[in-house]
């Protein structure tokens, strides 16, 4: 990251010493992580490494046993998810969580909820201010839908959409709130190769709009292709952090992913 200004170089998100256990299982132990502004940061690791737990701790769905999470240098750990979202952190879910019974456009409108102002009574009485608010929300939701490129399904009810479309609607919902930081939980899960590379291009496009991205992903081609920086977790601990090529060269990471390399296997 170029630039000498401290405010610009300070990480947008800084997690320090995060730990969380479920019963006797230490899902995450003393994990620290910086997300520099304007980058795409990847979190990888085998199943059960604690990636999703890390995400849930950052987004507020879970509370950490210990440790802090600072967003824009303000602590956010322990806040309700809606308050964290209100500060400009939005997320997607590993197993897509859409609002069924609503159209794609309505889903995206909910994504923009935090930037609307009309309340219960304004809505009930259909006050002019609520109408203006609604038109503003609608314009920006349509923009998000156009940005993701799903105009053709905007009016369709989401449970009838294909898996790829559902994922795209979720992404549109997440960016509709003009987030500062976007958390993507396995955005390529269940997508084929073509869709995965489209998703990679989309995530880049989102980053180029000035959104910082933190992404958990299994698909190595996607992670290595678009991430500026990668954190590797294994069994709840951070084992490596660095640029994609450094991760690929790391003996520790290779050991975790492929198992011990013994003499016979290494023969050509």
């Amino acid at each position: 990251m170029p630039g000498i200004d401290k405010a610009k170089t300070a990480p947008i998100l800084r997690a320090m010493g995060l730990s969380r256990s479920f019963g006797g299982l230490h899902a995450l132990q003393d994990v620290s992580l910086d997300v520099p502004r304007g980058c795409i940061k990847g979190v990888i690791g085998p199943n059960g490494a604690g990636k999703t737990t890390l995400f849930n701790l950052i987004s507020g769905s879970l509370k950490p046993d210990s440790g802090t999470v600072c967003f824009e240098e303000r602590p956010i750990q322990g806040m309700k998810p809606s308050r964290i979202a209100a500060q400009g952190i939005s997320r997607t879910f590993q197993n897509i969580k859409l609002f069924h019974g609503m159209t794609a456009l309505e889903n995206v409108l909910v994504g923009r909820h935090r930037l609307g102002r009309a309340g219960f009574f304004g809505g009930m009485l259909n006050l002019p201010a609520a109408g203006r608010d609604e038109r503003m929300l609608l314009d920006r939701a349509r923009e998000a839908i156009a940005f993701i490129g799903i105009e053709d399904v905007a009016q369709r009810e989401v449970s009838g959409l294909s898996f790829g479309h559902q994922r795209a609607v979720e992404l549109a919902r997440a960016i509709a709130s003009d987030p500062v930081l976007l958390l993507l939980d396995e955005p390529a899960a269940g997508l084929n190769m073509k869709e995965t590379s489209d998703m990679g291009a989309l995530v880049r496009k989102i980053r180029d709009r000035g959104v910082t991205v933190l992404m958990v992903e299994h698909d190595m081609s996607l992670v290595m292709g678009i991430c500026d920086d990668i954190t590797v977790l294994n069994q709840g601990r951070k084992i490596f952090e660095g640029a994609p090529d450094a991760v690929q060269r790391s003996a520790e990471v290779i050991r975790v992913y492929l198992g011990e390399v013994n003499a016979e296997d290494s023969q050509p």
Partner: protein
Amino acid sequence: MSAFKRIMPVLGLALILGLAPAMASLAGARYLLTQMTMSIYYALATVGLCLLMGYAGQISMGHAGFMAIGGYTSSVLTTCNLIGHAQMPAFSLLERSGVLFRTVSADGVSPAVCVAPWAAFLAAIILTIAIALLIGMPVLRLKGHYLAMATMGFGIIVHRMVIGFRALGEADGISGVPAFPVLPGAAISGVISDRLSNYLLAAAALVAGVWLLQNLVHSRAGRALRAIRGSEEAAEASGVDTDRYKLMTFVLSAVFAAAAGSFLAHYNGGIGPSEAGVMKSVRAVALVALGGMANLWGTLFSSLILNFLSLRGVFQSYDDAVFGAILIAAMVFAPHGRIPFFTANAAARAWRRLTGRRGRGGDARD
């Protein structure tokens, strides 16, 4: 949705409700107006539950409890005799401001002072809001069956209290509830000669209530409620304060029930403990389920029609069984509320299926 498209169904409802008494008169059955009026008040309570249960996805098995709180508060305050407290300093002030009014007690001779119906109504609404907040805050953390059981517990407590307290008339309930003048020249009362004006007042209240809810459902807040029903976790992650929205909806639905309960008590001239019974709550839940859950209009019409039939005694002694059966059927055949019966969408789909069957069949053979 445009303002025009949104107001049309409300106007349609006003038209239907407005024409109904004329049709009853033409058929020489003006006596039906009484049950029509009562079923309108029940429908007003049911559409409030529809918002909570259908749109926000939070079940309440204690809705009749709130209706009873509204009805009993109005009944108690407008019938209790406060003349013994006439020496209190605030008394004359309250009397001059119209909160209290002089009347005669049930024996027809001795003077009495009671709370005016409008003040009693206000008190009923405020009390309902307070109780709904108090109950809602802990209870709405629960989900599904647990929420159903907790709210049912609340309903049972209210029922037991109205039976148990002497001040609430025990098993006899409260009678002698006076007329409630809501507009100049129009009062909610059971006077036979005012039957038509009473019906129209009830209809106006229902149209107003449905208009408010219809607006809400199509607003930012209403969308947030539907999102909560879709996925509470994702709604929260989208910045919807789900706790607050659920609580607001719980309170609002309770206020609809309490207002309906209060009006109904003035209309009937009294209230009894059966209004607070658990079966009344089950009935409301069954009507929302039959109406198609997140379907204000379906709930409205199922409530108007079935409550009317029930009040006419069509179901005889199987009354509760009929509503229980409706609930079971709705849960088995359309647990998510897709009852293709009342909804305009379903009608359109059915029409397309009827008219487009040949074309589609052709596609299938290709």
